[in-house]
C-alpha cells in the first residue's frame, strides 16, 4: 500500500495557528507576584463571608434534649429501662420540661435526632422498594428482593411497605405543651406535621396504591405490615392525606440520612399564637417512648431550632470561612515577603541588562 499512499502531491502541512500550536494563549506564571493579590483578595472575601455566616449562624437558637434516658437523670430513664431487651417494647411515656426566658423566634422547627444510627449502611439503605412506595399495585404485591428479609411476612404475605428502612420507622411521638403563666394550665402547642417532607417526595415519589372502593385499607388488603410495626401502614394517621405511603413521618424517615448522627424534621410550629415563635414560659414535651436505641448505644434527642436564610444552625461554615480566609491572608503575607525579596533580585537582573 505504500505506493498508493505516497502518491499524494504536496505534503506541506497547513500553516494555521491550530496546527502549528500557536493559538493565542494566556500563560499565567505561578509565582509570588501573581499569587499575592489572589491570596489577599480571597482571604479578605472569605473573612467577610465568614463573619457574616458566623453571625447569622449564631443568631439561630437551638434547644436540644437527650431523652434516651441512659443516665438515669431524666424521667425517660424509666421507659428506657423498661424497654430494655423487650421487643416490641411496651408503651411508655415520659416528658421533658423546659422554660424559655424569652421569645424563641420563629419559625420554630421541631426535630428529633438519632445518633449512632447507621441509616447509611449499605444493606440497610438498599432495603426498600421505590416502585412499591410509588403506589404501583403490582409492586405492592411483589416487593423486590432487596427488601428481604422484610419482603414477605411469616405468613407469606407481601410486606407493605417492605424493607428494613420502613421496618425501622421511628415511632416515638411528641406533643408540646405550653404553660403561659407559672402554675397555669398547659396548652397544647399546635404542631404542623404536614409540611415536613420534601414536596416532591410527598407529591411524586410516594403515592398510595389506587383506592379500592374508596378505601385505602382495601387497597392494602393482602399485605402485611412490617414486623416491627404495631399497625398497618394505612392506619399511620387518621388524616387520609397523611396516611399510607404518603404519611409524612414515614416519607421523612424513608429519606435515609447521610451520616450516623442525623436529625429528622418532626414538626413545624407556625400556627396560631406560635407563628412568631415560642413565647416565653414553661413548656412540656410529652414523649411517647417507643424506639429502642440504647441497645446499640444510640441516643435520641429532641431539638427545637429556628432557621435562617442558610438553614439550621451551623457554626462550622462561618468558622471554616474565617480560618481559610485568615490562612489566605497569612500566605499572602508570606508571598509578600518573598515577592519583595524576589523583586529585589529582579531589579538587579534588570539593571544588569
Amino acid at each position: 500500500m505504500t505506493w498508493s499512499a505516497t502518491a499524494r502531491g504536496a505534503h506541506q502541512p497547513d500553516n494555521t495557528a491550530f496546527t502549528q500550536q500557536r493559538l493565542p494563549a494566556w500563560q499565567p506564571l505561578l509565582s509570588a507576584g501573581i499569587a499575592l493579590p489572589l491570596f489577599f483578595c480571597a482571604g479578605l472575601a472569605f473573612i467577610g463571608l465568614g463573619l457574616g455566616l458566623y453571625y447569622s449562624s449564631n443568631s439561630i437558637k437551638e434547644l436540644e434534649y437527650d431523652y434516651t434516658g441512659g443516665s438515669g437523670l431524666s424521667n425517660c430513664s424509666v421507659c428506657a429501662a423498661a424497654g430494655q431487651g423487650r421487643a416490641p417494647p411496651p408503651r411508655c411515656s415520659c416528658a421533658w420540661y423546659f422554660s424559655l426566658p424569652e421569645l424563641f423566634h420563629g419559625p420554630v422547627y421541631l426535630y428529633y435526632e438519632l445518633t449512632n444510627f447507621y441509616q447509611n449502611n449499605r444493606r440497610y439503605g438498599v432495603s426498600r422498594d421505590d416502585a412499591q412506595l410509588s403506589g404501583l399495585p403490582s409492586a405492592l404485591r411483589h416487593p423486590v428482593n432487596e427488601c428481604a428479609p422484610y419482603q414477605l411476612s411469616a405468613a407469606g404475605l407481601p410486606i407493605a411497605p417492605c424493607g428494613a428502612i420502613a421496618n425501622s420507622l421511628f415511632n416515638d411521638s411528641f406533643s408540646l405543651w405550653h404553660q403561659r403563666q407559672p402554675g397555669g394550665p398547659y396548652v397544647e402547642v399546635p404542631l404542623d406535621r404536614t409540611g415536613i417532607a420534601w414536596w416532591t417526595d410527598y407529591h411524586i415519589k410516594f403515592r398510595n396504591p389506587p383506592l379500592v372502593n374508596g378505601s385505602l385499607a382495601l387497597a392494602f388488603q393482602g399485605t402485611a405490615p412490617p414486623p416491627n410495626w404495631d399497625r398497618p401502614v394505612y392506619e399511620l394517621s387518621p388524616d387520609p392525606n397523611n396516611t399510607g405511603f404518603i404519611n409524612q413521618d414515614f416519607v421523612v424517615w424513608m429519606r435515609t440520612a447521610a451520616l450516623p448522627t442525623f436529625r429528622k424534621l418532626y414538626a413545624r410550629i407556625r400556627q396560631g399564637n406560635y407563628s412568631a415563635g415560642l413565647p416565653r414560659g414553661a413548656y412540656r414535651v410529652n414523649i411517647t417512648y417507643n424506639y429502642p436505641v440504647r441497645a446499640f448505644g444510640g441516643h435520641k434527642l429532641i431539638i427545637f431550632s429556628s432557621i435562617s436564610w442558610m438553614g439550621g444552625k451551623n457554626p462550622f461554615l462561618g468558622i471554616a470561612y474565617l480560618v481559610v480566609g485568615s490562612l489566605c491572608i497569612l500566605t499572602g503575607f508570606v508571598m509578600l515577603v518573598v515577592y519583595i525579596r524576589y523583586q529585589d533580585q529582579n531589579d538587579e537582573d534588570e539593571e544588569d541588562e
Partner: protein
Amino acid sequence: MEREPAAADEPRPPGRRRRRRRRRRRREGRTRTVRSNLLPFPGAEDPTASAAKGARRLRRCGGTQHLADNRLKTTKYTLLSFLPKNLFEQFHRLANVYFVFIALLNFVPAVNAFQPGLALAPVLFILAVTAFKDLWEDYSRHRSDHEINHLGCLVFSREEKQYVNRFWKEIRVGDFVRLRCNEIIPADILLLSSSDPDGLCHIETANLDGETNLKRRQVVRGFSELVSEFNPLTFTSVIECEKPNDDLTRFRGCIIHDNGKKAGLYKENLLLRGCTIRNTEAVVGIVIYAGHETKALLNNSGPRYKRSQLERQMNCDVLWCVLLLVCMSLFSAVGHGLWVQRYQEKKSLFDVPESDGTSLSPVTAAVYSFLTMIIVLQVLIPISLYVSIEIVKVCQVYFINQDTELYDEETDSQLQCRALNITEDLGQIQYIFSDKTGTLTENKMVFRRCTVSGIEYSHDANAQRLARYQEADSEEEEVVPRGGSLPQRGSTGSHQGIRVLHRSQSTRSHRRTGSRAEAKRASMLSRHTAFSSPMEKDITPDPKLLEKVSECDRCLAFARHQEHPLAHLSPELSDIFDFFIALTICNTVVVTSPDQPRQKVRVRFELKSPVKTIEDFLRRFTPSRLTSGCSSIAGVATSKSAHKSGPSLLSTLANDGALLRLEERLDPQAPGLTSNGYSSGADGWAQHKAAREPEPEQELRYEAESPDEAALVYAARAYSCALVDRLHDQVSVELPHLGRLTFELLHTLGFDSIRKRMSVVIRHPLTDEINVYTKGADSMVMDLLLPCSTDDARGRHQMKIRSKTQNYLNLYAVEGLRTLCIAKRVLSKEEYACWLQSHLEAESALDNREELLFQSAIRLETNLHLLGATGIEDRLQDGVPETIAKLRQAGLQIWVLTGDKQETAINIAYACKLLDHDEEVITLNAESQEACAALLDQCLHYVQSRSPRSAPEKTASSMRVSFSPVCPPSATTTSSPSPSLVIDGRSLAYALEKNLEDKFLFLAKQCRSVLCCRSTPLQKSMVVKLVRSKLKAMTLAIGDGANDVSMIQVADVGVGISGQEGMQAVMASDFAVPRFRYLERLLIVHGHWCYSRLANMVLYFFYKNTMFVGLLFWFQFYCGFSASAMIDQWYLIFFNLLFSSLPQLVTGVLDKDVPADVLLTEPQLYKSGQNREEYGPRTFWLNMADAAFQSLVCFFIPYLAYYDSDADMFTWGTPITAIALFTFLLHLGIETKTWTWLNWTACGFSILLFFTVALIYNASCATCYPPSNPYWTMQTLMGDPVFYLTCLIAPVAALLPRLFFKALQGSLFPTQLQLGRQLAKRSPKKLRAPKETSAQERLPGEPRTEPSEQGSLGPSGSFSQDRSSQVAWPAQQPACSPEASGEPSVVDVSVPLREDTLLEGLSSQTPGLSSPGEVILECPGDSKMKPTSASRAAPLSSIFSLSSFSSLNWISSLSLVSGLGSVLQFSRSGLQMDKQDSEFLPSPLPPDQNLQATDYF
C-alpha cells in the same frame, strides 16, 4: 517437477544423484510450481503423468488455483467477524478484562453496588470507542485496498486469445501480464519478453526501497531470443521456484521446458510488485507470486507498537494503585466485619439480617464488603486512562506531522511518525547513536581531489566553485546568472558553452532555502537523475591534469593504428589514461537520456557478451577475429545464448537451431553493423557533436547504484572522458580526440562489502589486451598490489608512487574525504583462460556458488598496478554542527557509529562539532583481547585520575569553559571537558565481550562523545543494546541505510532518515525525518512537549482518581465500612468518563509548558525529561499525597457543614461531587500553563455538562434508579445557599497548599522550566526580534558556569555586559575568544599565541594515531591557546589531530595561503544562512565551521 529428463541430460555418478534427490525431497516443501493458466488442467496430458508421484504432486499444486490471488486485503475484519474479533483483541488488554470483571461482579446481588446495567456502561463505552476507532481504520484500509485492487492491467485471456484489461485483483498466479512503460507492476512477475532488443527491462523500485535509480531486469534465458511477439499460448514450460518469502534481494528457481531443458531463474528475472516499468515499451511476464505472497507485501509490516518508558512507569504506578485499592478494600472489609459483629448482637434496628432471616456472619459480611468495595473504588484504576492516552498521542502525532518547521521543502516530505505510541519517549532520550554517512552527511558525493601515479591534483578551482554553491545556498534572493562569474576553467572542449549554461541553471535550482517552486524543480530534477545533484555533476577540472589528459588523448589519437598505442605514452600519461578509463567504466552506471522511455538509438557494433565458455573464449580470441570487427553468426549465437550480465548462469550451450535463426533475423536491425569497433574518431565525434549541440537537454544522465560511482563518472566526464553508453556486454567511452572507444565488457565482478572493491574485465580496444580495472577501498587495494622489487629503477619508482599515494590517501582521510583506489591489471591470454576456467566452474556450480564466485574474484584481483586514488567528499548536511551542539546542550550524549575508517570519521566528527579541538581524544585501537583489556584499564585509570585533579583548576579554567563552543551539558566536571573516545571496530568487538563491556561502558560514560569507526551493523546494534540494558538509558538511533536497521530496531526510539539510501531504515524506524537537523526540533521541542504533556496528564489522572476514591473511602468510616457511597452511582460511573475528561484531554494535547523558541534557545530545558522530573516516583507519591489531602478537605468540609443536619445521603453526596469537580478543574487550572480558548471552553463545558446531566437525571424519574433515589436532589440543592458556600470554600481550601507551594517554589526555587517560562513571558518581544538576546539572559538560579551555546561567545555573565564592553574586551582578555569581535586586531593579538600552539601541538603529537595497541591521549590545545583567530585556527587545529604525516607542513601552508579568502567569504555566507547565528556572531565562526570551510579548498 520433471527432473528426470534433466537429470538424464547430464549423467552423474549415482551417489551424487542420490544425494541430490535427498536434498530435493527435503526442499520439496519449500518450492512452488507455477504453470501457465492457459493450459488445460494438468494431469491428463501431462507427459510425466506416468510417474505416479509426479502426477499426484502436479494435481495438488499444478492448477495453481489454491494459490493466493492478487487481491489485496489488509483489512482485519469482515462485517461478521468484526464484533467477536475486535472484542477478542480488546480483551488482550488486561485493563479491559479487569473492568469487565468488575462490571460483571455487579450482577451478583450480594455484592452489587450499582445498577448492574449501569456498571457496564463505562466499559462498553470504552470498548465501543476503541471498536469504532478500529472500524474506522479498517474501513480506510479497505478503501485503499479497493482502490488498488481495481487498478487495471492487461492480462492474456484464454478465451479471447489476446490481452484484455482486468483488475489487479483478478490476476492469478500463472497469468500472463503485459505491462507498458510507466505502469506499476501488479504482482511478482517473471519476465518473459521485453520490447527491448536485448531483452532488458528497467524498473524503478522507489516504491519498494526508495532508491530512485533504475534497476535492470532481464528476460528469462531461452525467451530473450524471441523476436516476434511472445505468444503465451505456446508457453508450456513449468516454473519451479521458492515458496513466497520476503527477501527482496533473492529469487531462485528454474524453468523447465517441455523438452526437459532447464534454465535457472534469478532475481534479475523477477519484476516485483509495486515497482514501475521505466524506459521499456512493453514487457510480458507470467505471474509467480500474487497478492499477499508478493515480496513487497511480505515486506510490508505495518506500524510498530512499542511501549514507551513513560507508559511502563505508568503501568507500574497502576499496579501501585491496584495495591492501594486492595488495601483500602481489605481495610474496609475488616472494618465492616467488626462493625457487623458489634451491632448484630445488639439487635440494632439498622442491622439487616440475611434474606432468610438468619443473621449474617461477620466474615461473610466482610467478604461481601470487600468485593463491593472493589466495585465502588474501581475508579481508582482509571478506566479512561488508556483511551485518553491514546487520544492524546494521536493528537501529538498529528501535531508533529503538521509542524511546518519539520517540513523539508526540497524533498517535499515531512516528518513521519511511524510509531504512534512512543512520542513522549522523544522527550527523555539520553543517548543518541548516529550513523555518519547519509545521516550527518548528505550522502551526495562530490569529487574533490585525486592523485594519479603519485601526483596530487588538488582541484582548487573546484573547491572555490563548491564554496560558491554554499554561498548560493544561503542566499535568499534569486541570484544573478552565474555564467559570467564562473571560475576560470580549463578548456573542456567544444561543448563548454553548454555546460556553462547547464551549470548556471543548476546553480539556481539547487538551493535549499530557495523558493518553493525552485525547490520543487530541483527535486523533480533529482527524481530523474538519481544521485546526481548539480554539485557532483559539475566538476571544474584541475588545469594541470586536464592538460595531461588531453595530451595523452592526442597522443593516442595519433598512435591509434600502431601496434602498441599505449607504449607511446610515458608511464605517467599511460597511468592517467588508464585512470580515467577506469573511472569511466569500472562501475555499473546506467546511461539514460532524460526523455522516457529511452530511445535505444545506440550503435551496435558487434554483439559481445561476457565470455561464457572456453569454446567461446577461443572462438572470440582467435587472431582472425581481432581484425574483423563484424560479427560472425557463431559469435552472435553464443553471445545471445548466454545472454546474461554480471554473475551469470549455468553454462549451457544453446545450440537451439530455432533460436539461432531468430538471431539472424534480428541482426540486420542493428544499425552500425558495418562500422568497426573503433570507428573513425573524428567522424564519431563530429557526428556526436552535431547531435548534441543543438539540443543541450539531450545530455546523458548517469544512474548509479551508489553515489560514489556517479560522482566518479561525472568527474571523468569533466575531463572529457565521458561514458556514453553501457550495455551488458560493452561500454562506450567518448574522448575528444580519440572519439568513441568501445570496450568489450567481459565480466563485471560486483561490489561486495567483504571485498570492498569491484572490478571489470574488459578487452581494450586500442591494445586488444585484457585488462582488469579494480576500484575499491584503499586498505584493500593497497594490499593487492603487485609486489615490486626495490632493485630496479621502475620498482623503486613504483614504491615511491605507492608511498606518495598512501600519504595522499591519509591526507584525504584527514580531510574527511572518502577515498578509493583505482588499480589495473593486464592479463595475458593464458592467465585469463586459466582464470576463466575456474570462474566458469564457479558460475555453474550449484552449491555455494556465491562462495566460489567470491574466491574467483579474489583470484583475479591480485598483482594489481596502482593507478591512483580519488577523494570524494561527502558533505555535511545543513545545520549538523548546530544541531549536535544543541543536542549536547540538551544533555544528550551523542555516539557516532560508522563503518568508515578512523581518520575520515574523526575528521567528520571534528567538522560537526562532535569532537572539539581543545579536548582530549582517547583513541582505542587494540589488536587483541588482552591489549584491549589493558588499554581499557589504562584509560579508566587516566580518566579517573583526571577528575580529582581537575578540582583545583576549577577557577582557573572556568573562563575557558564559557568560551568553548560546546561544553558537556552534563558537566559534572565543569572545569575540564571530559575526553572523547574513539574506538575502531576490532577493538569494539573486544570491548563488547562480556568481561570488558562494563569497563568499556564506564569509560564511555565518562566521555563526552564516543566515535566507533569501522563498526559492522551488528556491532552498532550491540552497542545500542549494551547502553540500553546496562545504563538503563533511553536511547535513540538514527540512520539512513540498511546497515543501520538493526541499530534502529534495537534502540528505544529509532529514527530513519528518508534520504538517499533507500527506505529500509525508514521502514524499520519509529520516526522518519528528512534531514538530521530536524532531530533538534523533534527532540527538544516536540519531544519535550509530548513528554511534559503526557507526564502531567498521567499524573493528573492518578491524582484525580485517588482524590475521588479518597472521598468514598473516608465515608466508609461513617457508614460502618459497608461500602455504601454517598455519591450517586451515575456520577460515580460517569465522572471520569464524561464530566472531567475533556479539560484534561485539551490540556494534554495543547498545553505548552515552555514556548518552542525558548526551548530551542535553552536546550538544557530538555533535561527535565531525561531526569524524569515531571513524572517520577517522587512526583507520583507527592501527587498521591496531595490527592489524599485534597480528598480529606473535600470530604470533611461538607461533612462538618452538614453534620447534625437532616441532610439525606444524596443531598450530602451531590455537593461533594460538585466540589470534587470544581477542585479537579481548579487543580488542572494550576497545572495548565497555557490557556487557550479551548481550555476555557472545555472547563466550561465540563461544569455545564455536570449540572445539566445532574438536573436532567434528578428530574427524570422518581423511582427508576434503585438503589439510589436522587429525585429532585440537585434542584433542591440549587436553592440551598449552603451548597454554594461549601462549593466555594472546599476547593479553595483543598488547593490552598498546592497553590501556595507552587507559587513559593516558582519564586524561590524555580525549576529550569519555570525560568524558561518566565523568560518567554518577560521578554516576548526580545525573543521574537533578536532571539538570542533574551536567551542570553542568565536564568537566575542557574549556575553561572552553566554552558550554553550563546554563553560560549562571551565570558559568562550577562550578555548586555558583553556588548557594552565589547570594545575593551579583547584588551582585557587577549588570549580569550576573539569570536565576539573577530576583527583583525584580535587576530594580531593571537597570532603569536597561535604559533605557540602550533609548536606545542606538534610537539605533543604522539606518533601514530592509527598505530594499534597504543593509547593516544591527545591534548592539542589548552585553554589559552584554543581561541585563536577564527578563520585561521581551524586548519591548524585540524592538523593537531593528525599524527605524523610527512606532508603536514605542506598542507598547512597550502590551506592557509590559498584558503583564507574563500574561508572569509564562506563565513559570511554561513552567517546569512543561519540567521540565528548571524545575529549573534559578529564575524566569527566556530572553529568547526571553519574546518568545514577549509575542506573546500
